[in-house]
């Protein structure tokens, strides 16, 4: 029985937010503060020949100008992708790449100074699409293929990545342990006409994994479908523009306030680039005015203001313009997908082969993880006995993509859920019934070795089917109106940290004051999702006090123990578990002292309603503050720590690090649509959504997260699009909030939300995530509803009016990509599934499914007859 957890109540920071008292990064002003502006690249891909800032330096009011030479050390969020420069050193890689920074006494002077800086570029051939990055310059499908500035020299965008390693393999100089697998690719598709053996140097990451023999799965199937999908990129569009303020003090210390979701990673990047001991740097993450993943990378501007503060001895602030926020991006990757699924007559899946092509933009960012995520979670909803995933992320000369709400999973989820709708249609099955028959069981391990704990998807489906009147309406509504269903799952926190270490992912200190005050310290960052409140609720629950009696201090790398940040939906579970441990330790100290005073056994001591009392005689007790004083007199200062490290994942193969999580949330949604066949405009009057949250720590906040996810999913489904003028130097078409269409009140649908509570043993009080997962089913539910309404398939997101119209006018009653790039994939890492007696490890390199019996110990009862080695080769067009 809980008193705080599970009740709806205002967030602990709600009153500060509604009075305008919350101080966001740009609301900070320090004495003698300078303002910073950044000059950004005007070419998508070019060498920097010279920079002359002398005229800017002599402008009155300008205090410092820096270029890449002042901050040359590369950084990046992932250890494997340290490819960014705070200011570009030798070349620029997208329109908007930072080149020169100015600090001046006024923002306007800094801005004027930018006009006085002369940068001479040598343009290089820009790469504007997946196809172009792969050296396929044929006409693509809306998102690729144009020959860009063909006269300019073609150079690789980066000097690292799997493409560069491939070229080295083809050139004969070997490339580490991947040599054999990669050589297959290097030899497979040949050069792109730009020099012998150059391969595809703009390939950032290539992945090939196979769990069980997928071809054998297809051989067992009653039917096999192949579909191609494209999911357009979109951006986070947080209302708050990124801002940062830095102050250097004469004792050699540096403080940076920044609107970041990940102060710990900013801390590390600052230390690296500035070559300062981390102990001298303090990073405050200010409350984020919306994040959604867009403030999860260490950014150029954070390093730049720190460097300028160190150089000038004065505080330096920057607030990005909205246009610059579009350039920072790190949003949803555009992903082209091919999925081949074998199925039985009852809709059960016999095997799935999934391929994804990610347009990564100009830098690595989280992209290696994003690429793995496009293949990771296909297996946690419906049973997939054999599964193969191949993925490639390419560099292009566009703003870098990264993690946006759902990180790498909404795209494959869209493909999977729309394809299942098509399979149900082929089989004449109700898509809801079909899904219900084949759910992954709770407490099981998937083909790719993800451990599923609690699993409430069945209940989610039943809830939205009932609430939406599904059975009476599906395929029964008049032409133009339709209803569609889709499901999804998401992580509750990544199982592994971003850089390898054995330390906790989250730490909390609970400090009790003799006045009865309780301070909770944690490195997490409230980005609007309510993470500060969750900390207060958990501690208040354990100590039996009101959450408003707790002060929560977060996001300060000096005072608060590390939390890795507000990403991967990890905060409620991980900080919640750490807070629970810290609070229980504090409670134990107070309870022990109180028990002596009350002459009762410690097991009988209860903390509730601001009192500490004997359960058998509730009148015998102490006020909470009195109990704290007793305990402090006995023990000294009371400050307890708690920490949390996720359980180890089950997979032992290379690539097993992406996908494992302490718990998976589940969602099911039904969308109702109206399609105007004259204009192609899709409107969505209502969405029913059920979300398996494990346990809602605060149902009000949880429902708010679900509604916000539906909203953002609706934007992606209908209108949001990062679109570029590929044939005009890859310039962003609409770096403004007016032209980047996002849903206003007029486009927003009504939502009926159901929280399904199936407590997960790994979550604090059973809680799982709710901030990202509920976005995922919306785009496929809308697409499936459009089919129900007008009988056309739109296999491309967003379902903008032009796409819907094209589908309505097409002979095939479909709009979407028709082919995928021909390319040879590397030999997959082959991992036997749990039901084939696997142990999570990969077969030795070069060992096929049919050969492994000779080299491996005999396998369990699930082992099949030996099957042929799968053909490695090109995708047929």
């Amino acid at each position, binding site marked *: 029985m809980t008193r705080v957890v599970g009740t709806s109540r205002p*967030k602990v920071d709600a009153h500060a937010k509604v009075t*305008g008292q919350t101080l*966001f990064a740009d609301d900070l002003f320090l004495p003698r503060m300078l303002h910073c502006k950044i000059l950004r690249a005007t070419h998508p891909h070019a060498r920097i020949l010279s920079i002359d800032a002398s005229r800017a330096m002599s402008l009155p009011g300008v205090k410092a100008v820096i270029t890449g030479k002042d901050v040359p050390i590369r950084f990046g969020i992932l250890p494997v992708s340290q490819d960014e420069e705070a200011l570009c050193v030798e070349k620029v890689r997208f329109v908007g790449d930072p080149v020169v920074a100015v600090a001046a006494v006024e923002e306007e002077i800094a801005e004027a100074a930018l006009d006085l800086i002369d940068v001479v570029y040598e343009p290089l051939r820009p790469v504007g699409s997946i196809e172009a990055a792969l050296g396929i310059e044929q006409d693509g499908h809306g998102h690729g293929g144009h020959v860009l500035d063909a006269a300019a020299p073609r150079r690789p965008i980066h000097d690292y990545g799997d493409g560069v390693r491939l070229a080295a393999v083809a050139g004969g100089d070997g490339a580490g342990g991947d040599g054999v697998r990669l050589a297959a690719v290097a030899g497979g598709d040949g050069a792109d006409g730009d020099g012998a053996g150059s391969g595809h140097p703009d390939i950032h990451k290539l992945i090939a994994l196979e769990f069980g023999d997928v071809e054998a799965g297809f051989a067992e199937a009653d039917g096999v479908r192949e579909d191609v999908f494209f999911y357009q990129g979109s951006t986070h569009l947080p209302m*708050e523009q990124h801002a940062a303020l830095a102050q250097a003090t004469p004792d050699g210390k540096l403080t940076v306030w920044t609107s970041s979701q990940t102060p710990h990673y900013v801390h590390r990047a600052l230390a690296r680039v500035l070559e300062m001991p981390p102990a001298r740097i303090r990073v405050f993450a200010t409350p984020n005015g919306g994040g959604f993943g867009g403030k999860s990378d260490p950014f150029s501007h954070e390093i730049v203001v720190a460097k300028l503060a160190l150089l000038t001895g004065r505080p330096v602030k920057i607030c990005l313009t*909205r246009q610059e926020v579009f350039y920072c991006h790190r949003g949803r990757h555009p992903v082209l997908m091919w999925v081949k699924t074998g199925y039985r007559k009852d809709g059960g899946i016999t095997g799935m082969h999934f391929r994804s092509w990610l347009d990564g933009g100009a830098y690595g960012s989280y992209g290696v993880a994003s690429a793995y995520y496009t293949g990771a979670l296909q297996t946690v909803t419906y049973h997939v006995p054999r599964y193969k995933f191949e993925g490639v992320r390419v560099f292009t000369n566009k703003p870098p993509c990264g993690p946006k709400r759902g990180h790498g999973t909404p795209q494959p989820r869209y493909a999977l859920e729309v394809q299942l709708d098509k399979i149900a249609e082929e089989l004449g099955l109700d898509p809801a019934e079909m899904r219900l028959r084949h759910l992954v069981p709770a407490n099981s391990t998937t083909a790719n070795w993800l451990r599923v704990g609690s699993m409430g998807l069945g209940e989610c489906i039943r809830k939205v089917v009932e609430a939406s009147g599904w059975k009476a309406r599906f395929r029964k509504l008049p032409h133009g109106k339709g209803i569609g269903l889709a499901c999804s799952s998401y992580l509750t926190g990544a199982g592994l940290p971003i850089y390898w270490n054995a330390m906790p992912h989250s730490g909390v200190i609970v400090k009790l004051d003799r006045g009865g005050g309780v301070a909770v310290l944690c490195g997490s960052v409230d980005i609007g999702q309510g993470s500060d409140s969750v900390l207060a609720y958990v501690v208040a629950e354990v100590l039996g006090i009101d959450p408003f009696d707790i002060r929560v201090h977060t996001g300060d790398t000096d005072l608060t123990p590390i939390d890795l940040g507000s990403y991967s939906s990890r905060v409620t579970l991980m900080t919640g578990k750490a807070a629970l441990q810290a609070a229980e330790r504090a409670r134990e100290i107070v309870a022990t002292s109180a028990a002596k005073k009350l002459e009762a056994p410690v097991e009988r001591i209860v903390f509730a309603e601001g009192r500490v009392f004997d359960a058998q005689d509730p009148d015998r007790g102490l006020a909470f503050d009195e109990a704290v004083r007793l305990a402090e007199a006995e023990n000294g200062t009371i400050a307890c720590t708690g920490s949390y490290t996720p359980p180890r994942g089950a997979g032992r193969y290379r690539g097993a690090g992406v996908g494992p999580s302490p718990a998976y949330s589940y969602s099911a949604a039904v969308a109702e649509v109206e399609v105007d066949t004259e204009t192609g405009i899709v409107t969505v009057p209502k969405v029913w959504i059920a979300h398996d949250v494990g346990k809602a720590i605060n149902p009000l906040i949880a429902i708010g997260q679900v*509604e916000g996810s539906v*909203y953002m999913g609706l934007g992606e489904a209908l209108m949001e699009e990062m679109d570029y003028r590929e044939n005009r130097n890859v310039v962003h078409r609409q770096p403004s*909030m*007016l032209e980047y269409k996002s849903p206003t009140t007029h486009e927003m649908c009504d939502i009926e939300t159901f929280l399904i509570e199936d407590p997960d043993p790994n979550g604090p009080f059973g809680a799982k995530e709710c901030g990202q997962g509920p976005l995922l089913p919306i785009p496929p539910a809308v697409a499936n509803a459009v089919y129900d309404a007008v009988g056309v398939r739109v296999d491309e997101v967003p379902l903008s009016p032009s796409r819907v119209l094209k589908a309505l006018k097409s002979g095939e009653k479909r709009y979407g990509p028709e082919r995928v790039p021909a390319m040879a994939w590397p030999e997959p890492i082959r991992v036997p599934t749990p039901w084939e007696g696997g142990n999570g490890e990969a077969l030795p390199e070069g060992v096929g499914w049919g050969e492994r019996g000779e080299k491996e110990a005999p396998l369990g009862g699930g082992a099949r007859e030996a099957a042929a080695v799968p053909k490695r080769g090109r995708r047929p067009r």
Partner: protein
Amino acid sequence: MAEPLLQIDPRREDEKILLTLRVNGEDLPVAFATHETLLEVLREDLRLTGTKHGCELGECGTCTVLMDGRPVLSCLALALEAAGHEVTTVEGLAEGSRLHPLQEAFAELGAAQCGYCTPGILLAAKALLDSEPSPSRERIVAALAGNLCRCTGYLKIYEAVELAAERMRGVAA
């Protein structure tokens, strides 16, 4: 809008002028260059940072303040234009420590998540309720259509406006 109080010589546009602006019921003397926007003067000169900005191009509604009770985008208004008018920002909504019913309802119903668009939306909602004490859902949708919010999906905002309206009518009755 009334006639400008001053005729500005374009050759002197970078020079600061001293004016008294009436903001949240107080007369505040402030010196600013005539090209400065009301948003800039409120935030940077008067340090009323409760007013936020999302684009500074009039696209997002975040910087909404009231001028004589009507919502204006402070990023598109010159501070000069506010002279002689009553400006209300989010700091002026509460009476002393007593929150405005809209603020209470927004906190209570979870209508503010990150809270960044909240000041602008509160003021747009106040303008609506001051002129229409019992707005329909459609009227609320229309009144807030110029204010983007990326967190909430707007639904909790509608509910909070409706709750505040109900409470304000109760007080007025």
